[in-house]
């Protein structure tokens, strides 16, 4: 189900906890699985759960609780826009609207070419930089103006 490298990474995470508490590694394991697969199909969640010796539903609870885990396929670039209060007050909603218009999709949708997925996110802990957005769960972009969004999209378009 998962590649040898992913399994090795998961094993390294498991080693951080006592042997009878393997399931403590569930968040890392799901993250590693998602990096490999792009998203988390239920078979992968079940596999991870079995690998950690925990019930599948318990792993699913985790995977569905945190919104950085994707339970459905996403495009090559996932853009998560924060719409919580500080961002909203600083133009987060406008940034999201501009993205929707530019990409021609709504939240939780993917462009027909499979390049972009737009998500609505919760506070990313960088309210001073508002409005913020997150690319592919890893790259944070601050002070989102239209120009900056255009620039980011153009960069991502080429990747």
């Amino acid at each position, binding site marked *: 189900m998962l590649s040898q490298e992913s399994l090795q990474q998961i094993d390294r995470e498991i080693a951080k906890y006592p042997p009878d508490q393997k399931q403590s590694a569930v968040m890392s394991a799901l993250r590693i699985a998602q990096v490999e697969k792009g998203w988390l199909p239920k078979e992968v969640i079940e596999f991870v759960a079995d690998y950690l010796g925990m019930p*599948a*539903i318990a792993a*699913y*609870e985790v995977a569905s609780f945190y919104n950085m885990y994707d339970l459905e396929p996403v495009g090559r670039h996932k853009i998560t826009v924060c719409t919580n209060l500080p961002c909203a007050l600083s133009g987060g909603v406008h940034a999201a609207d501009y993205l929707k218009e530019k990409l021609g999709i709504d939240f939780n949708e993917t462009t027909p070419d499979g390049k972009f997925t737009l998500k609505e996110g919760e506070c990313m802990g960088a309210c001073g930089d508002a409005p913020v957005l997150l690319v592919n769960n890893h790259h944070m972009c601050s002070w989102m103006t239209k120009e900056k969004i255009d620039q980011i999209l153009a960069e991502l378009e080429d990747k």
Partner: protein
Amino acid sequence: MLEIEIDGKQVTVEDGSTIMDAATKIGAFVPHFCYHKKLSIAASCRMCLVQVEKAPKPLPACATPVTNGMKVWTRSEQAVKAQKGVMEFLLINHPLDCPICDQGGECQLQDLAVGYGGSQSRYEEEKRVVFNKNLGPLVSTDMTRCINCTRCVRFTTEIAGQMELGQAFRGEHAEIMPFVEKTVDSELSGNIIDLCPVGALTSKPFRFSARTWELARRRSVSPHDSLGSNLIVQVKHDVVKRVLPFENEDINECWLSDKDRFSYEGLNSEDRLTVPMLKQDGVWKETDWQTALEFAANGLRKTAKQNGPDSIGALASPHATIEELYLLQKFTRAIGSDSVDFRLRQSDFRADGFREGAPWLGMPISEVASLNRLFVIGSFLRKDSPLLAQRVRQAAKRGLHVSAINASAEEWLLPVKNRVLTAPSAIVPVLLQVVAALAAEKGVNAAEHLGAAIPATVSDEARAIAQSLASGRKVAVWVGNLAVQSEYASEIQQLAEEIARLTGGVFGVIGEAANSVGGYLAKAVPLVGGLNARQMLEQPRKAYLLLNAEPDLDFANPALAQTVLGAAPLVIALSAFKSPSLLAAADVLLPIAPFTETSGTFVNCEGRAQNFNAVARPLGDTRPGWKVLRVLGNLLEFEGFDQNDSEAVAAEALAEGSRPDLGNRLYGLEFKFAGQTAAGFERVSDVSIYAADPLVRRATSLQKTRDAKAPVACASTATLAAIGVASGARVRLKQGQGAAEVLIVADDSVAANCVRVAAANAATAALGAMCGEISVERV
């Protein structure tokens, strides 16, 4: 001990108690949804907020530990205001569909909304909708009604032992669900219906069939496993609509297994026999009681005269009541035959005549909690005794070490420290090694009668079990159904007794059925040279009395039973149901009442006699079994068949002095173990959970569950390779004359050289004995 004041009343509670415990102790009701005394604390509903002195805000009573001198108000202005606030939030998303909700009238949310809810909602926005989940054939869902108390999640995790439900997503989107497209398959799943404080989880078989206030509630006792769970049977117009647990902390606590809860569907099955029937020239005709009884009485009289009374045998189901079993044996003995037996699925009767008394659990059920070492021999514990397994599971959390030996290592959902997986014929040698290791461990000699059989060398796994048991403070050794039904039952029991003796523990027999103990007490076993259940079939009789038993499904050797009973000149069947095999074998069918339509008594595995009354009128011309037997006694003019009610029969049957005592010891039985003989493969049989008795076999919803799937044969990967078939292939199983075609799948929880195939199923009814040699051929 801590002193605490609740609503002005002083109460002393143990250290570590919560405010909820203290409130319960003085009888102060604190409204709650997620709190349940048998489950862990979640404090997720917040309904139990109370005012605590010096606390800046209301605190949840269920999760707040008591401190000395604490002052609590459960109904102060602050407390009630907080409770009403919580209630308003809970009702925001709850649909107002009480008139069409099955929970209506017995709903905790509805009840508490009367006291704490507003008459009108201030919430005008859209309500949340949650899609329903398919949890299987027993539990119906209306998830929009869910208040996310997580009682069901905690039940599956903590009590049933396997987390089958979870709370996925978060915040307002949180919902209770099984893992994607899974169902809840636990044998205890029905309890989540009782636990759900709203109408989110309701009973699928009961759905929309009655309102709770229309139902009469009557107490009864479960006729299925050996626990004897206490029931509340709910009846409308003489039809049983639903079965709920009656709380009895000593037996079933507040739980019921699904078998106890949903088997009532079988009561209204189309198979019910409602009129006496006679077979004339091979054709079945309905008749009246007088004709049928006279036919039976005359037939028996004639057989006794022509062939001697010994040519008559009586075979009864261990699910029959004490009254039925007692009168059956009394009647058979009055004819002059001692051939009466209720142990239809057993094949080794060598211990008869050496028994101290009726085999029983050896201890009260409630004492399972205080055990710290348990050795389970030959048992499908979880499926055969779901609630006993549940008790073991709870005890295991508190430090009980469980060891097990069986021919199949099925998942018990509890930690098993030492597990030996071995063929049925090899259980005795392993037990001998355990005895040897224990004797060495304790520095004593094994009992003399075992003498030469004690081996010099001991395997590591046997030693591990011995060490575990030897280190115990309170030890029990239990013998399960596979052991009791095995051909080596007497040796296994002798060794279990010896292991218990060496460890200073208790030797117990778990028991197969509701009256596995009761049958012995009612003396429904041969006592003075009569034939036992096996002999009665191996040495065919001229006439048989069958009590609630179906030839193809209730016997150790169904192939033999069908042949012999089919060929017998006279078979009188007392049964609540008709079945093809009964119609083929019997000559007269007398419709007797199932447990809901007769009064009766069951003696459970701890030796507790529990009597119950009829909860509904008998269907059609059905009559209580004990009355039918009494009238048969009268027709043959026997003495002692003039009891007026079932209480009189029970009193006579269970009178001190005349009935045997409880006791598992075997006195003076020689230990003769011939050693392994099976050359080919050995058959391992379980009686699947929803096939054990005629009633549960007709419970339609239970028959749709995963546990009731058509049987497949299972064998380990190595065994399959030895046979030369692939997993999933179709094979022909053969035992003597009997053969059956089934699928065979790889299952490494089955011992090597064994083929596990369920008994008590139409698909395998053509096979022979439940244990012994079996051959497998590719088709």
